[in-house]
């Protein structure tokens, strides 16, 4: 594995870690969403790096996967934001109380 790939991999790990930290720390749904998006971004970076190919041309399959993954992430985030607005209308808060329901 060459140095460039290593830098990308470490970056992906760091971004993923920040995402996990954010998800565990955040109380507001919007922050949790951002954290999940960060984790998704880290996975996409990992996929692209692993498909980079130390020798020969890069593998196209991970690129296609990331492209589809981004589309899904964008639509899921858009839906989550719409649902968050609905949550705010219905409950007057943008936090999920961990003690209710369940």
């Amino acid at each position, binding site marked *: 594995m060459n140095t460039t790939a290593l830098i990308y991999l470490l970056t992906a790990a760091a971004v993923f870690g920040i995402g996990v930290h954010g*998800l565990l720390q955040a109380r507001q*749904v919007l922050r*949790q*969403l951002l954290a*999940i998006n960060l*984790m*998704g971004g880290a*996975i996409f970076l*990992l*996929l692209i790096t*692993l*498909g980079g190919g130390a020798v020969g041309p890069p593998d196209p*399959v*991970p690129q296609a*996967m990331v492209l*589809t*993954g981004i589309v*899904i992430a964008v*639509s*899921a985030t858009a*839906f*989550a934001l719409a*649902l*968050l607005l*609905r*949550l705010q209308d*219905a*409950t007057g808060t943008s936090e*999920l109380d961990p003690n*209710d*329901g*369940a």
Partner: protein
Amino acid sequence: MVHEALIGLVFLPLLGACLAVLPGRFGTRLAIVVGLASLPFLLLPVTLSVLREGAWFYTLGGWSAPLGIRLYVDPLALLMLWMVALIGGLAAAHAWHDFRPGTAAGERFWPLWLLLTAAMNGLFLSADLFNLYVCLELVTLAAIPLIAMAGSATAVRAAMRYLLLALLASLAYLLGVALLYNSSGTLDLYLLPDALATAPAPVTAFALALIGTGLLLKGAVFPLHVWLPQAHASAPGPVSAVLSALVVKTAIYLLYRVGLWSLPAGLLADGAMLLFAVLGAGALIYGGVLALLQDRLKLVIAYSTVAQLGYLLLALPLASLAAWQALTYQMLSHGLAKAAMFLAAANILHAIGSDRLSDLERLDQRTPLSLFALAVAGVSIMGLPPSGGFLAKWLLLEAAWRGGQWGLLSVLILGSLLAAAYVFRVLAAALRREDPSEAEDAEGISAIGRRQATYAMLLALLALVTGFAAAPILELMATGIPPTWGAA
């Protein structure tokens, strides 16, 4: 011909989802005919071909496996597809009256419902790990707005919590798939066994753990079930039915596919199978006890789902033909019975305006048919003869007996006792007479209410009939036994 039918199973509901967006009544009605009513007719030739020739692959667009995406149809996939067509169809008939085409509610409801159907069909047919990821996301993104459609603060909160956990689960699954692809070089479920045989074991184990965790979270397997009860209980009736009967099973189905089809024999250690059994046993007991403690009918039914999903994992270490038949039969009979219960509960909620157990007195006079459906479905959930649930649990007991698994045997019996307790508790509440003097005032039920009760009754009867007409289904399932269990 049969290839077109197979593609139609995914394509027609998708087309329907597009048609349902058109304004006015006509587009939605056309969409329902094209996307839902067509499914049994498409499934018929596919079923016949599997009965004649066994399982087969279809390469989409002629692109063969390593590059293209394959579809695969086998007995397990057929079972799930028929469940989508029948349970989904009857739930849709029930939903027709609450979400009439042409009304504002109908315009929001049907595109999502059809999209959900298309995504589930695609999931059951796909043979590609990444394509499965896309279908899994589509199922989630179509199911959650259907929950939020109930509009109450509880429903929206439950939907939001479900969405966050589902997104997290998808990420775990995706990361697992990425690692698996990197070490094996293929995404095809059925090419993986050979490709993984030479892959580095630690990476494979880590990837499988990620995929497994993601799927267990989406499948609401104890102790990752926290999102399920509120989400399933606060959704509109037909949506609850489909969520409990079909949507959570998509993740369990995928767990079977990855665990039993796409791994080289012996790779999944006994420890992993034991873990599944322990989780299943935990679900069975925890879900059963909590179902017993709820004071709202829909929550009782939702916790019952948590418990019944336990059966689907419990038998995995047995790895025998009887265990396989029991698992698949449990899929089917639980789906039918649980859908019947949720539809009946929706009718009761509709008729008396509450589903608190303390408000359910004299239901045998107020909503007789729905209560009867609830009771008949309850018989299957408890596992009393003659019902599909009885047969599934009997096969499980037999498999556990033959395997000499006494711990498993006692958990199974305890689970059935708990189920009997919570079903009878509901029935006792519904047959209570609070004040003998008002016993005569049978309330009028609308024609729509009667029709909606019939759909619940039909599902409950199907759950009962599967107890009698089991032989052909069980024989078909026997031919679809996972390759890693085949030698047993």
